[in-house]
């Protein structure tokens, strides 16, 4: 059972990791690197709580072997959180009560980031479409949708 060295860019920093065969990005992040913002809600690709961005595209890290991201750019919630302070998306999730138990929040924010990076003016339907792979069991989604609309306004400089 030979472990392999994999090199990729994690949150803007090139790293080298040693992983056992078929280790997932989720397991690497959480159990090897201690980056636990990426959650493990189902390990079935079904809940979206483990969403990370690979070259800017949302992917379920629970289904993604680390070796498959060799040479790629992976971004997690830790990677978009400024020090100090909050990213605009984090700010609006916090202020608009788009959070309740907090478990789906990291995945929701990552998808929101990918959406707004591509489409700075998403319509309500586009927001809903982007979120369909991410489950929230507490909020009923409405505050999340509104938070993303608000984030878009603030990022485009006409917030508040």
């Amino acid at each position, binding site marked *: 059972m030979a472990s392999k060295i994999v090199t990729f860019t994690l949150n803007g920093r090139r790293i080298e990791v040693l992983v056992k065969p078929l280790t997932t990005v989720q397991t690497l992040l959480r159990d090897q690197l201690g980056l636990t913002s990426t959650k493990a809600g189902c390990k*079935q*690709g079904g809940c979206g709580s483990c969403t990370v961005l690979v070259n800017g595209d949302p992917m379920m890290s*629970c289904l993604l072997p680390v070796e498959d991201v060799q040479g790629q750019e992976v971004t997690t919630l830790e990677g978009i959180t400024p020090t100090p302070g909050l990213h605009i998306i984090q700010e609006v999730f916090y202020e608009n009560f788009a959070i309740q138990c907090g478990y789906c929040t990291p995945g929701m924010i990552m998808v929101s980031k990918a959406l707004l990076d591509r489409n700075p003016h998403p319509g309500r339907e586009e927001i809903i479409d982007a979120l369909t792979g991410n489950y929230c069991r507490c909020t009923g989604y409405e505050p999340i949708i509104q938070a993303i609309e608000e984030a878009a306004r603030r990022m485009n400089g006409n917030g508040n």
Partner: protein
Amino acid sequence: MNTREYFLPQSVNEATQLLAKHGPFMLVMAGGTIAMPLINEGISFPQKVMGLRRAGLSYVTKPNGKITIGAMSTLTQMLDLKEIPILQEAAHQVGGWAIRNMGTVGGNLFAPPPAGDFAAALMALDAQLKLVSTAGARIISLTDFYTGFMTTALSPGELVTEIQVPVPTGKTAYLKYGRKHANTPAVVTVAAQIELDGEGVTNSRIALNAVGPHPIRASKAEEILSGSPLNPTTINMAASAAAEECEPFSDAIATEWYRRKMVEVYVRRTLTKITDRR
């Protein structure tokens, strides 16, 4: 997960050689959206796994009148296929955004029902598959590819490398019905391609998913339409024929009874959509 070896071949050649060497004890994995959940849950314990993400199969080319899709192309890539709107629609109906970024066209052919929504559209378009092994390549139609529930005509040592789709000459329509609006297993999926000569149907292909052991053709319904005009009467006849000939199952999503009812409704709606598109 007790996987001892994970291979990531850099070409089809390398992939088929690995497959020839390690044989049936090696799990082939494309996007992993079907295979990985089983491994994570402790249902499957493959000793050896071969991933295809690096094998150079994520391409779409457009030679004359045909679109060839590398088996590792993702469903997200299919959203750009402006030439074939039914494939765009079908791709958008699979999972959510992240699943479409990972799940592949090749993998969808192997998805056990009620999954396989993209494959149903391919079947309505008369897609051909290229199967490759160390012994060579062969072409087989998607309709002939399926042999039973989770069994296919794929021989040991073979991979699906390419899906070849003739650009449709008829009118197409696609409807997936699930319990939710999006990211949902199908109660039934209907994909249809109808060629019309004036009012009369010259050729029809109706594919159904989630109501059989794999995506199936509604051949009795097709027969009814052939040579007939496409109007509410023939559409109703075809819809009830489809409901009768399909082989639905009961699962957590829907009962056999309900699926059969919905086949009738959704075949009717799909065909009506085609008449609306004239």
